């Protein structure tokens, strides 16, 4: 069966197809999550104290513009040739997408809604969790989707410093043994994975914002 032979990777690939999927998801989505955890407080700070936003935005933009391979290799000195060397720059790259995402999400909350919540006696934390975050969610989730897809794709460059590129490993190996089938496999798998992740995150968004579902069916 063709399908079986496609997913059976040659032995010099130090992983199974499933293993590649796992590594790819672990590192990319892990980096996106880590980026989100860092971006939430930073974004919150920037929206409360707008003076901080331009320099912070400038910093993450500058980091984002540095080619990933450069960041990976520079980090080898500190973290060696390991998965962490790929993980840290990937996390930093997501900041350029997620910090603006958080800030825009918070700014999308209408001020009169905040006023109403205050007027009803909501405490700061409760207001943040039950009013601001839910309304900011669509904008935020859009940014998370972009960051996730971006990370999935960028991770493949990690293959240049060893087999830490997930499906990117197939690219480097395909080049080395001049086998385009491996490369096609890597590309298509990565693209399919990206689409699936995007769909999954959209589904999560729908779960978390039930009112948006009703809006669509009424309008």
């Amino acid at each position, binding site marked *: 069966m063709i399908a079986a032979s496609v997913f059976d990777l040659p032995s010099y690939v130090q992983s199974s197809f499933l293993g590649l999927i796992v590594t790819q998801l672990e590192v990319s989505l892990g980096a996106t999550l880590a980026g989100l955890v860092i971006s939430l407080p930073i974004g919150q700070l920037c929206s409360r104290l707008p003076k901080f936003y331009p320099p912070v935005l400038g910093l993450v*933009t*500058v980091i*984002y*513009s*540095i*080619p*990933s*391979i*450069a*960041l990976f*290799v*520079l980090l*080898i*000195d500190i973290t060696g040739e390991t998965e962490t060397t790929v993980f840290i720059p990937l996390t930093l790259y997501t900041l350029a997408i997620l910090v603006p995402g958080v800030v825009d999400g918070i700014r999308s909350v209408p001020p009169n809604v905040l006023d109403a919540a205050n007027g009803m006696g909501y405490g700061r934390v409760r207001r943040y969790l039950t009013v601001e975050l839910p309304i900011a969610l669509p904008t935020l989730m859009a940014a998370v989707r*972009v960051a996730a*897809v*971006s990370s*999935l*794709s*960028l991770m*493949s*460059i990690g*293959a*240049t*410093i060893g087999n830490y*590129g997930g*499906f*990117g490993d197939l*690219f*480097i190996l*395909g*080049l080395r043994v*001049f*086998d*385009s089938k491996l*490369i*096609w496999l*890597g*590309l298509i798998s*990565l*693209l399919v994975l*990206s*689409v699936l992740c*995007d769909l999954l995150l959209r589904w999560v968004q729908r779960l978390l914002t039930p009112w948006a579902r009703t809006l669509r069916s009424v309008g």
Partner: protein
Amino acid sequence: MNLLGYLRQFFDDPSYRSGYDGIWTRMLEHCEYSLIALVIAAAIALPLSILSGHSGRGDGAISIVAVIGRAMPSLGLLVLLAVELQISLTVTMIPLVLLGIPPILLYTHAGIRAVDPAAVDAARGLGMTPWQTIRQVEIPAALPLILAGLRGAAVQIVATATLAAVVSFGGLGRYIIDGLYQFDYKQVVGGAVLVALLSLATLLVFWILDRLLVSPGLRAR
């Protein structure tokens, strides 16, 4: 930190002063091909997105291109074309151009769509032809976003050109890839730092372009 030490070794090494492996040569090579790719990408993407923004159609197609551009791994594309076609300079230029197109397309389309519709209506009503409206109103008003798209494309192209060293391209990526294979870490550090500086320089160039070309009337905040 060892990084500074490696860096000093790199810049002290006379073999990188001149010749085909010289810093200046590699830097120019990198810039030259990045610029060519940017110009070609802009020549393709700008007219398409200006027209689509002006007519208001093509929102869906542009979104799809944006998503593909984001999800497409640059390394994969480089390597695929090298293996399927051949390892050559021309073939390497293809992914450089292709990956530069989505940012320009997305930002320019969005920028032109975001121009105040009342201003465009007034332009038509006062007697501007469609071309005059595009040239005198829509493009200048959308310039901040157009430049942002070009900047995004430039950054993407510089990064992809760095990677292209794995398929025998020259440029600054050469130091990184050669250094990795030769276990010569000073080359790796030198190359990485140089390419990081080039990216910053690219950002600087676009910052300057923005201040020079964008009308003060658009800096509302």
